[in-house]
């Protein structure tokens, strides 16, 4: 072990001891110990390195939508177990309890700066934001409502990919959502948060007219671990991060959380 690794290790261990529970949090990216209330005030962004902590769908609802304007749709669409996949029913029950959500996406209508919009906000805390039949159908219906009522569509994405437990049905949600977008003639803005990967990225999430990523978000098709195993090489620094995608011309912009709503408002005022 090199000296700086040792120092880092000791630093980490002592830091762990010093963090009083609940009051302080450590930045995942720069290791800075931060006063939790300050981080919350800063929209869960590290004041030192701009690291964007992962937040849930309720957070984005509050951040992006006009207060009290959200009407939820399709909550009654609930998870089934089409393959009778071992352990899936229990997994769903546990996820519902832990996240207080019915599935990995909330969809509905809302206002942004007074403008009606259709929204779909994913939630990573529900089985890693994975897309099964419920996510696919809720998103499809959101797309359909936006198409029929000529409303702009906003999606906020956070997903590890397809819901393996629903097998081929989860794969087909990529087809369901992506093909449905052909009928949408209104502006579609897609926000890619940390992480947006695999099946969700390879379908509706990357089909926005405008693609906005949060700083540092992991965005890619294959997981870094799988790629490393396949090519048997170390991955370059910053690989599959939002900045990497911007550099390679794959997304339109990176926007910090604090500027996200204003950016959306401005884009919609141009496009609508």
């Amino acid at each position, binding site marked *: 072990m090199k000296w700086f690794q040792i120092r880092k290790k000791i630093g980490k261990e002592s830091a762990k001891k010093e963090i009083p529970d609940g009051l302080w949090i450590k930045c995942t990216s720069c290791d800075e110990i931060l006063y939790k209330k300050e981080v919350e005030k800063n929209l869960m962004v590290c004041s030192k390195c701009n690291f964007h902590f992962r937040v849930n769908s309720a957070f984005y609802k509050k951040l992006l939508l006009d207060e009290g304007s959200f009407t939820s749709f399709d909550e*009654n*669409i*609930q*998870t*089934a177990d*089409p*393959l009778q*996949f*071992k*352990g899936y029913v229990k997994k769903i029950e546990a996820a519902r309890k832990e996240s207080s959500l019915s599935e990995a996406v909330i969809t509905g209508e809302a206002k942004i700066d007074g403008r009606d919009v259709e929204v779909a906000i994913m939630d990573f805390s529900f089985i890693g934001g994975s897309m*099964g*039949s*419920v996510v*696919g*159908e809720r998103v*499809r219906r959101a797309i359909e409502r936006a198409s029929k009522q000529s409303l702009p569509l906003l999606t906020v994405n956070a997903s590890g990919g*397809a819901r*393996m437990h*629903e*097998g*081929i*049905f*989860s*794969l*087909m*949600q*990529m*087809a*369901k959502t*992506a*093909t*449905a*977008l*052909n*009928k949408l003639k209104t502006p579609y803005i897609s926000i890619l948060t940390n992480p947006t*990967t*695999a*099946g969700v*990225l*390879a*379908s*509706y*999430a*990357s*089909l926005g007219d405008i693609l906005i990523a949060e700083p540092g978000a992991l965005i*890619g*098709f*294959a*997981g870094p671990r*799988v*790629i490393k195993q*396949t*090519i048997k090489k170390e*991955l*370059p620094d910053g*690989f*599959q991060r939002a900045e*990497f995608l911007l550099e*390679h011309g*794959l997304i339109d912009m990176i926007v910090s959380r604090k500027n996200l709503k204003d950016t959306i408002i401005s884009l919609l005022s141009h496009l609508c």
Partner: protein
Amino acid sequence: MIKHLDFEKPIIELHERIEELKALNGNMSGIYQTELKKLNAKLVKIRKEIFSSLTPWQRVEMARHPNRPYTSDYVKFLFKDWTEIHGDRRFSDDNAIITGIGSLEGISFVVVGHEKGRKITEKVKRNFGSAHPEGYRKALRVMKLGGKFNLPIVCLVDTAGAYPGIGAEERGQALAIAENIKEIAVIPVPIIVIITGEGGSGGALAIGIGDRIYMQEFSVYSVISPEGCASIIFRNQEYKKEAAGYLKITAEELKKFQIIDGIISEPEGGAHSNHEEAAKLVGETILKLYQELKDIPRDDLIDKRIEKFSQMGVYIEG
């Protein structure tokens, strides 16, 4: 050397004995004839026994069989006046996907298909059938040619998956797949999709959108490989056999789920035991499906195609 799977061994051995006996045909006396008849009958019986009771994992092995016919084989046996088309006109020509135009019973088809490659040099050239974004972009470009010039399209799906690599990510693997799915859905000509081997997740779906989806008898179609599923669920790839069962990836299961429209039977012993016969059966299905689709007004065709995928999924609506 002919490669074969473990469970094919009894068939191979019997086959060899029959061939040996035939080699002695200089003086085919009654005794040899009777023995030959007996062995042939046994071969039919054993084949039937083995192939009617394959486990899900054995079906995965069949779908990945090294001698299984690939797109180039189907092209060779089915499509006359074949003209291959190369490149995505953006980055390069991805040899993991073959695209071109050929004629089947006098009808010109655009053909798009994965190609795994037979010999090792060929496999490397084809990247084992795992495409990069430029492969999917080439496929879309050539399928749009079909749309423009009113040529029906056949897609032959056989891939372990889209390639997970640095270049693939740099050039937008996920974006290429998403764009294909969306844009293929509105190409205004009949599209027939046939899973001929491995239907590997997004890499399969990227050329898997069509009006009719068929699977060959011993092909599989899955959201994740059994190995991948096993390593996530059991943290151990050794459970791939169990995972293959859980995932429900065989043609019969997917037909039951109404994910696919039909199954194309394979010659005795699987497509790899007789490429020409396998191709014949695929060709007949293509022509039958083309007849079903060719007169549907183009707007209806597209609406129905999108509707088809909008129906897929199982949920409870309370």
